[in-house]
């Protein structure tokens, strides 16, 4: 095996770096474009809360140091890049002296788990449905019933989330309203805890899966139909191969390639959508943390979460980019 070509690797890694840098730079610019001096605004907001926040002086000092108020912009920018690179995202304003990275690290596994699982389920089932719908020998009965699974496609995930909460949590009381596990339990490796996590995660996951599945199905169906006319499909049939083999090795195997590319392109949108789903379900992930940041005007927290989200998405895309050449041999040897 000759492996992945160097040019491809460099190109994709370059894209990864550019995306992360762009995210960082946006997070640097936005506060500085905001009307008024952001630090002054923050200080005054803190002053208003001074009665409650005891160490406000320390926060202000920390912030002055972090922003380097006196330093010229380019120096501030470089310092900011340096800090972010070391994953130092500053102090939360609402929960000083907790650092933003501490809070994010606590929330991240939930978001990561929910998002990865939901995306994988929705991608694979969507692909399967689309592949069957775009395959001529599929029985008529399946052909008629499968499109029903796509009826939530046009709806945003969080709206379906509200509906699901109302029906299954409020109405039927089958699932809990909020949280990631039952209140009495402590996170540990036990069946009881795992069951509780699944019980709590089911509704939010369903909201994401049911609304995104149809997009994959539609894309896959289109590719399968386009693929059916290809010469290699006709030759495969002429060879007298079993239909299942033609379906998987000649049909699905080729039609799935563009879906993987579009998965990489839509991870950002999926992550964005799940923020609001978490907020609807009060799921203790980064989306809900973000909402708390908004409510508390906790700017360092908001920026930190968004920065981590951008990085996470960029990493996911980079991973897909690394996997892609393994399933499409035409990329592997490009420019060799």
């Amino acid at each position, binding site marked *: 095996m000759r492996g992945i070509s160097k040019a491809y690797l460099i190109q994709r890694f370059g894209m990864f770096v550019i995306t992360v840098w762009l995210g960082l730079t946006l997070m640097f610019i936005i506060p500085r474009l905001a009307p008024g001096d952001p630090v002054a605004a923050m200080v005054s907001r803190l002053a208003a809360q001074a009665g409650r926040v005891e160490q406000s002086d320390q926060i202000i000092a920390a912030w002055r140091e972090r922003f380097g108020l006196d330093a010229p912009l380019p120096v501030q920018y470089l310092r900011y890049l340096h800090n972010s690179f070391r994953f130092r995202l500053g102090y939360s304003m609402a929960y000083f002296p907790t650092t933003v990275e501490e809070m994010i690290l606590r929330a991240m596994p939930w978001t990561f788990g929910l998002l990865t699982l939901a995306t994988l389920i929705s991608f694979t089932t969507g692909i399967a449905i689309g592949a069957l719908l775009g395959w001529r020998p599929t029985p008529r009965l399946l052909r008629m019933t499968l499109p029903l699974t796509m009826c939530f496609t046009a709806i945003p995930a969080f709206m379906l989330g509200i509906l699901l909460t109302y029906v299954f949590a409020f109405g039927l009381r089958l699932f809990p309203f909020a949280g990631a596990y039952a209140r009495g339990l402590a996170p540990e490796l036990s069946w009881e805890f795992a069951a509780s996590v699944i019980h709590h995660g089911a509704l939010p996951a369903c909201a994401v899966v049911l609304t995104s599945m149809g997009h994959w199905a539609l894309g896959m169906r289109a590719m399968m139909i386009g693929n059916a006319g290809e*010469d*290699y499909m*006709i030759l495969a049939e*002429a*060879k*007298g191969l079993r239909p299942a083999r033609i379906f998987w090795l000649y049909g699905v195997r080729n039609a799935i*390639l563009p879906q993987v590319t579009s998965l990489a392109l839509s991870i950002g949108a999926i992550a964005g959508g799940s923020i609001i789903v978490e907020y609807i379900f009060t799921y203790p992930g980064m989306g809900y943390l973000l909402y708390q940041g908004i409510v508390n005007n906790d700017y360092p927290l908001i920026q930190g979460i968004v920065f981590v989200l951008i990085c996470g998405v960029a990493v996911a895309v980079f991973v897909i980019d690394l996997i892609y050449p393994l399933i499409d041999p035409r990329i592997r040897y490009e420019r060799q």
Partner: protein
Amino acid sequence: MNPEQKPPLVLRIQDLLVHYDTGPAPVVAVNRISFDVHRGEILGLVGESGCGKSTTAMAILRLLQPPGRVVGGRVLLDDTDVLKLGPAALRAFRWRRVALIPQGAMNALNPVMRIRRQLADAIAAHANANGRAALRARIGELMDLVGLPERVGDLFPHELSGGMKQRVCIAMAVALNPPLVIADEPTSALDVVVQRLVAMNLLNIKNTLGNAMILIGHDMGLMAQLTDRVAVMYAGAMVEIAPTRAIFGRPMHPYTQQLIESVPSIKVKKALRVFPGGPPDLRNLPPGCPFAPRCGCIGPQCEKKIPPLRECAPNHWMACHRHDE
């Protein structure tokens, strides 16, 4: 060749009728054609694009894509009617009995599978459990047969040139040594040098293995070189079928004459004839002979009645009203 000496029959097509169900009335893509193919013979099937030659080939393999549909006729291969086979029998019949060398080998190979696996695929689907080593040896043999080094088997299709891909397709077609191979314009997408190489490959294989072959194309030069007999199709109908020597020596149908005259020749300097008129519109054929609107010598009958295919000389069948006159 005398009728008494004809080698045994491999394929007999009787009154094959293919419709394309588009629009209000079906389009007749293949209009009740009949012909035979004998063992060890290369039959050339020629005509302009859209005349139904590829459709015929796909009908024989039962590979017509909708809206195409075989409406009538019989395709007999050693006494089995291909059109009546059930799904399992059809799968067993394909490739073992009739193999296909597809048109435009550019996209004929699955881009995500190694060549070796695609060859093995075809063999393994029909011969049960010959073992890895035997399979490997067989693939080596096949590669050798078409003059490709064995390491080509480890490559992916996009790493091969057009000629190499076409030769892989040829190797694949003869993998099970089927009695009949259909080659659908096997050289059309290749450059001249490679065309010749592939053509020699085909001839070589027929001579070694003795399969019958249907060679579809519009390159009359190639037909003259390779085929034993030539069948000429026009607007879905068979207009002339005769031994190659007779077709080129004494073409009878005006369309065949035009086809042959349109081939440039180095030896004889002549003005190239360009076809008058465009290919026929299958949705809207004239009531009489379909070729009448483009024919240089039409008579009173031509625009009224469709001429039947008749044996005008021994083994020389032709469909034209004007022949007797």
